[in-house]
């Protein structure tokens, strides 16, 4: 049952991400990315991380993607024109040809490296209290308290920066 769920979620995540990169309409790209995030949240639930799953939906799919959606709608981002030259060998300006080669190289290298490690199996079922929200909160506020406070300053800086950058100049 769990393997079936894993394959379903993995397939949705990969196909949605491929379509985000491959298809031309930016509005569809944003919606497909939201589906991909939902599939990843399902994978987090399979990994005994319910808090991370819910946080992924709230922050990524619920807030960051709304921001992207607003920008796409307000800037009226047009569909990209398909590249003028023909597909397979000649991918347009030399930058893109090099980029395509590099992406394929990266994918091949990552997959090769990952296929060489020994299959690992997960630690046995730990008590629910280990990955409970209470435990995460405790760790965040004791061991990682400094990082926690710094992220609040980071968010403040990002907010001020975003408002200043997007302001109309008079």
């Amino acid at each position: 049952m769990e393997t079936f769920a894993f394959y379903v979620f993995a397939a949705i995540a990969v196909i949605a991400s491929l379509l985000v990169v491959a298809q031309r309409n930016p509005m569809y790209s944003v919606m497909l990315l939201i589906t991909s995030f939902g599939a990843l949240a399902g994978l987090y639930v399979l990994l005994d991380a319910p808090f991370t799953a819910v946080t992924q939906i709230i922050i990524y799919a619920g807030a960051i993607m709304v921001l992207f959606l607003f920008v796409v709608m307000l800037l009226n981002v047009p569909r990209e024109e398909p590249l003028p030259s023909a597909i397979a060998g000649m991918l347009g300006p030399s930058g893109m040809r090099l980029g395509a080669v590099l992406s394929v190289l990266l994918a091949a290298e990552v997959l090769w490296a990952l296929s060489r490690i020994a299959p690992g199996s997960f630690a046995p079922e730990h008590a629910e209290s280990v990955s409970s929200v209470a435990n995460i909160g405790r760790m965040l506020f004791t061991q990682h308290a400094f990082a926690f406070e710094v992220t609040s300053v980071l968010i403040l800086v990002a907010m001020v920066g975003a408002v200043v950058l997007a302001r109309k100049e008079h």
Partner: protein
Amino acid sequence: MAAWMPSPALLAHLGLIFVIFQMLVLSAAFMVWMERKVCAYIQDRVGPNRVGYAGWLQPFADVIKLITKEELRPKAADALLFSIAPVISAAAAFAAFAVVPFGTSTTLFGLLDEPMPLQVTDVNVGVLVLFAITSMGIYGIVIAGWSSNSKYSLLGGLRSSAQMISYELSYALALAAVVMLAGSLSLREVVMSQSGYWWGFIPKWYIFLQPLGFFIYMCAGVAETNRAPFDFPEAEQELVAGYHTEYSSMSFALFFLAEYVNMVTVSAVATSLYLGGWLGPLLPDWLAWIWFLVKVFLLLFFYVWMRWTLPRYRYDQLMEFGWKWLLPAAVLNLLATAALVLWIG
């Protein structure tokens, strides 16, 4: 039982999900009737009274009319997104009810081996799941507004979603204060921690400990569901009908359904968090869900009453209220609750 037949527990669970789904749809129909009747009596007239005794069949007549209408779509609208938008709204509205508890465990008069709690599922991060699904509901409105390819829809959709995002913050902070008091994120535990009485007759509901929190939650909830006095994006006088201008027939019905089910969900969560859920005197445990229904009904009546009594906020007044008044109040409420918990607990 034969090996291929599902276990009684699974059957009972599926039956419970079916019952909850039907109850939500019926409650939306009931809300249509109640809204028109209450609105009528507030405006000193009678309201629908032709279809059935006191007009109680009116919602079903409305549904038949909506189903038989022609389904239109503007030629320049994006077909896929246009048809998906109401589905997203309705799906999010129904899904949020999955974590709301409305009664203690029941064994269906001894048919089941172990008691089944009256709730679709009791995740231990229930409050966060609620918040997550509410944020997903925004997409239905935004996509509806954009894909209709009409200026009224786009403006209405953008305004409505901006309003929902702004009030989500106060909503979350009010929820956080209750979670602090209860010590758990599971809605069932929050309700159970409100059992008991002070001095024998005042129930230990959180509304008495958090009056400001309750007010903030109700304001944010009303704004989230785009109801008066925060319904400027749907104001007929200004924006035709906002983001659902171009929709007709079943798609429009889905948006309506989503709005009413959202109202029911907000009221149900408010009773679980602040009014003690299904806890109440006199009734035995297995009938406790009646108390839940009574409390939800009271909150829904309050919703309808507010709509037909209060004038609506203008959009900039609405946003100012959300950011400059409600959010600081929610933060103060959280700090005060934290101080209270530290001082007493």
